[in-house]
């Protein structure tokens, strides 16, 4: 998503419309509410990259007093506008990601074994679910060597994003 010029009225309106559009994709009942479980997807698709913990905090801000399982647009919109204007949760630059993989690559061999990646992703940090792990492996794993050649993987993903 391109960076919008966020100075002045025009910028604000455009941001609001963008948020509304993304929100509507998940508003199945057409009543300006979405299931709380889809909020993460909406926020991330608008260009932000929060961690799970940060996401939970955001949700807590916009939930009802008595959580209904739904988030209303009228609460979500102002919060999201602020997040976008303040440029919070920016995406991670490629070189930083590479460093992260290198940290996990204890032996500094330029790749991670399947077991290593699985262990880190499902036991450390904010653990993956089984499904998330499988999906990541399906693209990241080099079936011939059973390893993750993370430099190549990242390069491919970055192209894909654009």
């Amino acid at each position, binding site marked *: *998503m*391109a960076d*919008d*010029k966020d100075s002045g009225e*025009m910028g604000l*309106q*455009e941001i609001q*419309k*963008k948020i509304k*559009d*993304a929100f*509507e*994709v*998940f508003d*199945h*009942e057409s*009543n300006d509410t979405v299931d709380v479980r889809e909020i*993460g*997807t*909406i*926020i*991330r*698709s608008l260009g*932000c*990259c*929060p*961690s*799970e913990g*940060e996401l939970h*905090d*955001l949700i807590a*801000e916009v939930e009802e007093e008595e959580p209904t399982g739904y988030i209303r647009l009228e609460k979500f919109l102002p919060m999201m506008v602020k997040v976008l204007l*303040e440029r*919070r*949760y*920016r*995406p*991670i630059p490629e070189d*930083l*990601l590479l*460093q*992260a*993989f290198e*940290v*996990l690559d204890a032996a500094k061999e330029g790749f991670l074994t399947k077991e290593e990646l699985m262990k*880190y*992703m499902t036991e*450390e*940090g*904010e*653990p*993956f679910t089984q499904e*998330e792990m499988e*999906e*990541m492996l*399906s*693209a990241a794993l080099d079936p011939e060597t059973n390893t993750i050649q993370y430099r190549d993987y990242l390069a491919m*993903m970055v192209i*894909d*994003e654009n």
Partner: protein
Amino acid sequence: MGSGSSTPHHFVLQKAESAFKAAVLIQRWYRRYIARLEMRRRCTWSIFQSIEYAGQQDQVKLHDFFSYLVDHFTPSSHNERDFLSCMFTEKRLLKDPEMEKYCDYESIEVPDYYTGPHVSFPLLPDHATALVEAFKQKKQLHARYVVNILHEARNHLIQLPNINRISTCYSEEITVCGDLHGQLDDLIFIFYKNGLPSPERSYVFNGDFVDRGKGSIEILMILFAFMLVYPKEFHLNRGNHEDHIVNLRYGFTKEVMHKYKVHGKKILKMLQEVFCWLPLATLIDGKVLIIHGGISDKTNLELLEKLERHKIISTMKYTKKPEKEKLVEESRSSSPWFPLKSRSVPSSPLRLSPQKGSRSASIPCSFIPNRKEISKRVRKSVQLELEKCRQQVGVSEFKVQEELPLLPPESELDSCDLEGVNYEEWKQVADILWSDPMPQEGCKANTARGEGCYFGPNVTEQMLQRHNLQFLIRSHECKPEGYEFCHNRKVLTIFSASNYYEVGSNRGAYVKLGRDLIPHIVQYQANRATHTLTMRQRISRVEESALRALREKLFAHSSSLLGAFKSYDLDGTNFITLSDWSAAVESVLHLGLPWRVLRPQLVTHTTNNMLEYKSWLNDLAKEQLSHENIQSSLLEVLYRNRSNLETIFRIIDSDHSGLISFDEFRQIWKLFSSHMNIDISDESICDLARSIDFNKDGNIDINEFLEAFRLVEQSYLEDKDSELKTSETSDSSCSSQGIH
């Protein structure tokens, strides 16, 4: 909350903590990636659905168009008059001696060189299994056997009640399948995975067996064969696509005519008489109701059981109730003259409009009845003719009179007389076949489809209580997982055509019920290739297909879009903001899509966040155009109306020869454009017709005309998707996937 980018640019602390932080980083990044994929997937789905529904609305518009013509058009020449009468009287007007011919299969000879399956009666389980095997090997069933099976199927169906009552006492389990839409692979897969039908294994197929896919006739043959072999255990419900009008548009008619060049017409006519006899619903243990579409707040099982279902040949609107304003208008201007082609019905002396002088007048008229009466009279004549044919076949109960007495003008009631079924009964069936559930309470008209309703959880609840039911099973809507529960798990949608929109778009599913009536869902995807692709690749493929369809639609509205863009560019700079682009596009296309989310994929070149709209439109056109000699605006118009035109063509081509004359082509175009407010000159049409007539014999091959558009699509496909090589041979005359 602190600032979001809390990630420091150096990992200072101990290794464990750095590993933790690194993991979080990667997970954070990955989850965002997945979220963006999910968003794309949802948008893709919206695109397909909105285009599909827009197509269905077109279908309704088309029929309103015909009614409109009937009601308003004043033919100005001999040709136009005949043309109109040909359109309206349609092929349901079977002449007496012909009907017998249609049921006759014995005269069709099976040649010695025929290598396909043979069928004899009484049908045995082995025959049915052999059919499945033969179709797996891509054999085609001979027309003689097709007609034979249809004949027997009809005889069987006639005995069935409107609502099939079945029980889990007799067979251990019942498997319910949803829409198949001509996708033979899915049916074969279901039988492979779940087992063939047998006395211990009951099946219910919930409608929409045909259209869109390429194996509709084969599916029908298999389903009818098993129905004949296991009449107590194998059940079929009618869907909204078991309807010859819908088939004209959505590909089944085309498929039959292509596969059965000699006997196709006969088969199609027989099918009309088979479809209308399909039961409307199935009830399991008196507790689970299975209908194809849904219900409305007026749905009444007692009424449904009593009505004569075979009289409802089609649930597409034929005629609207005439509106009061039109009547007033009509009395002032000249009323349409409406002749009948059939010889055996006495012609109605309905010639009006004295200004148009020299018509070959049949009978001079002595009075001028009002238009509504004319419509009713015509319908009655059609009805009469049909009754006579039915009588021939021994189906009708009514003795048909030779002469049509002059009917007194009928009073303006709410109920339209449609082929001997009153409006209320017709609506009951239309609701069952077309409705969709909605999350909100209440019941309102289904504007997306043009027929049936949207029904809410309270309507479901009332229905269940009224008839002491546990839950409903319906189909009719494609779901990504092949099934979906709603209304507090009281409504189950089951959809059995996997990869419906595109390879990888969705799974198919079927549901099994045992004595406990607890639904067990089984999902599948009948295409091995998708299993090996990553989610990203699957989504990309489907997405590309959706975007292509969307770009096509955008191109088809180029002129309107240009106008809309210009209205945002009052200074004449040739640039508009991206925000204005989104607003303009929605105002023209009315698809309700999230344009701002889709924008990055539709608009690739911007300068300072501004779009040079004219070059964007040009780029769109470059993708779509193939023939330089056809003016782009004309092509745009034709493109937009491609499906409608095709449907009209097929109706006009009454002998299913695949050819129409120049004159007929021009007539169609004139009529169509006058109704749709399209401004194309006669000359352009003539030029177009001439350029399409490749062999210069004064006839236009419909398929070649439509092929022109397919070639555009094909060359685009070949360029972009070299990795998506399918082994199917592209058969231009056969209905294929793609948006109809």
